[in-house]
């Protein structure tokens, strides 16, 4: 039995750097990054988020899922000798030597209020709530700012001509980090437009499959009550037998 314990201890040891803070032991490769202009020497193989924590910051804003889904850690940076402005997610991007970065944990953005039950899924609905879409000059800055590499300009253009399906499909992987909206010269909030398009398309563009409605009716009519009552009275052994013998599709 002590074997299991020592295995657990070995696992804990192997994961120490990721479950507690990193220390300097055994780190051979270093880079220098600049957090809002302040230089920090950090281990070379970290993500921006890990490096910021290594440098001594405990995130209040700017850390969410830490896996690339929530958009909390939007970061913009430049690299030495390069004029280009890059956008990235801190939790998904490796540090580079000479990286000049800042985090953007919040974007001020007006989200329209609507009741999609009362809206018509026509070409005008997106323009109705976000008329600023018409200001789009196709400059492509939003696409360049997107850490998910989405074709943002393309979905704004689809929104402009009222193509709900295309807007929904092209914007689907959007994590609403806000960088597109901040950079847009026409001051459009692209991700809010995408959200409305997806809800309208999801509700009106996709057909309603018959299956849930049917089953819901059956449940409401109490079709399964007897079976449930029997199950809920069964003892453990009987249930185990039923479980093991159940037929898999």
């Amino acid at each position: 039995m002590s074997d299991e314990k020592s295995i657990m201890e070995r696992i804990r040891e192997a994961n120490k750097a990721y479950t507690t803070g990193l220390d300097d032991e055994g780190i051979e490769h270093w880079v220098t990054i600049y957090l809002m202009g302040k230089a920090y020497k950090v281990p070379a193989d970290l993500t921006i988020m890990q490096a910021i924590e290594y440098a001594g910051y405990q995130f209040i804003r700017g850390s969410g899922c830490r896996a690339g889904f929530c958009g909390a850690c939007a970061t913009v940076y430049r690299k030495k000798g390069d004029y280009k402005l890059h956008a990235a997610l801190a939790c998904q991007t490796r540090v580079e030597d000479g990286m000049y970065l800042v985090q953007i944990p919040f974007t001020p953005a007006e989200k329209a209020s609507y009741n999609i039950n009362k809206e018509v899924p026509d070409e005008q609905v997106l323009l109705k709530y976000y008329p600023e879409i018409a200001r789009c000059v196709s400059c492509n800055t939003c696409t360049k700012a997107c850490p998910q590499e989405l074709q943002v300009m393309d979905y704004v253009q689809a929104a402009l001509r009222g193509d709900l399906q295309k807007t929904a499909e092209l914007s689907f992987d959007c994590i609403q980090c806000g960088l597109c909206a901040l950079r847009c010269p026409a001051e459009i909030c692209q991700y809010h437009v995408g959200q409305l398009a997806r809800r309208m398309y999801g509700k009106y563009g996709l057909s309603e499959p018959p299956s849930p409605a049917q089953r819901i009716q059956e449940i409401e009519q109490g079709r399964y009550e007897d079976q449930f009552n029997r199950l809920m009275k069964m003892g453990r052994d009987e249930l185990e037998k039923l479980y093991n013998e159940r037929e898999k599709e």
Partner: protein
Amino acid sequence: MTELKFIRGYPEYMLESIELVHRTRDRRRKEIPASMTMQEREDVLHIHPDYAPGGKRKIKAGPNRGDITPNELADLLEAWPRIDPGDIDLGNIDHDVDILIIGGGLAGTAAALLANDNGVPKEGILLTNKLRHGDSNSIMAQGGTQAADRPEDSPILHYLDALGGGHFTNKPDVLKAMVEDAPSVIRWLGELGAMFDRDEQGNFIELWGGGTSRKRMHSAKDYTGMEELRVLRDEFRSREIPVLEFYPAVELLTDRAGRVTGAILWNTETGQYKVVRAKATILATGGFGRLHIRGFPTTNHYGATADGIVLAYRAGAKLRDLDTVQYHPTGAAYPQQIIGLLITEKLRGMGAQVLNKRGEAFVYPLEPRDIEASAIIRECYEHENCIVTPTRMRAVWLDSPLIEEVSGKGSVERELPAMVRMYKRFGIDMRKDPILVFPTLHYQNGGVETDPKGHTNIEGLFVAGEISGGVHGKNRLIGNSTLDCMVFGRRAGTYAAQYVKEGVEPGELTLKHVEGYVELLKEAGIPPERKAPMLLPDYRGKTVLARMIDVL
């Protein structure tokens, strides 16, 4: 450590093993290991981090005194409050509401919507978040949502699947409520505009999951949680229901009779506190992955620190099934930047196999999670048939390229765009090369005991989502967590609204329960240095921490 040369994102020394994976693929396609017998299951479970000795102890104080729970959670349950009741002026109420919801993931947001649907005006609801609204485990859920809506399926089968998966310890009436509400949840989401995956005929594409006897997992690519949550959140925002961000709850408030009457919220950016009086309080604070139980990495988000359980426990809530912890069998193990992140079971549902360093499939790919995880740990640490990463983590292969053959060319990119994107960012093409995985801390199976209406044993306190205990028993199946959140979020919202409408007097506000709890801690000899709730994990570099001083 000498310079590592990388090929296709992997260190050179792993290439030999990767080649074996590619070479064995054709043969393995037809030779899938058989699923384990009951005896084989028992034989392997001993190495599971939840069963291996040394990780748990008896709780020393409170309603579940004497019950076993992991050390890291016991540390928080047996801990002193962060606030001193003497510092709080309870006479000055900042928000006076009908329903306070603590936690804005799927469960909390669903609760707000249903409370509003059931007659509570938006001004009567307040949703508060420790981080932003939506920062949660929900938003990262990749697999899907189970619902027995097809004619070939039935809620009875869904019930049985979950019951067996839960080792027959699930609370029957609560489980029944969940499986019966499931088809309604799918319909509700459709009405709100969620885009679930469809086939050409317009029917839902429904998938396998570990332990399910029917295909009933509804998903939206591998962004299911994100799609569901952003639709609910968008509806919430459209209704302009009041919301707070960066305002975690640090204590509940109770009256002299022990009813929960609100909470103290704390502004993490300014240190200011708010007193909230509420006729009903719903805790939807999620899980505890950031406790890193047994030192495991986690799939959970930054804020998963068991705050809600601690707060409820101090108020006298009964907990259940917190003696078990769910480890997801496949967390990313390489590269180090993504250690612990969820590699959804959907991959195995689509055909991926789990392989050792010789490219051999050593376990049936879709065992229930605890079995699958144990098999992997055994292969790594007992049989030593694993890959060791540059950071000395042990891991096995998950043959993702096999999915392209089983489910069709292009299926990986189409069904798992989030994951393909994640690996691409680090130079690995998971459609062409396998990925390394190891079990990771994933889910809190138990929690505050609840009933079909989201009640707890304390009047005025409701729970919904991962914080609750009973619906999954001692082990949750894939696709039942997002379902749990939405079913019980809706129920808690509905029944809290009903409770409020029945005519509840706004309660007196005291921290007596906290003072009482402190007495219990003193009796048990717990030192005051240990404090809870944790609120945020601490990953600050040790070197820097050693040189930090408080000057301002």
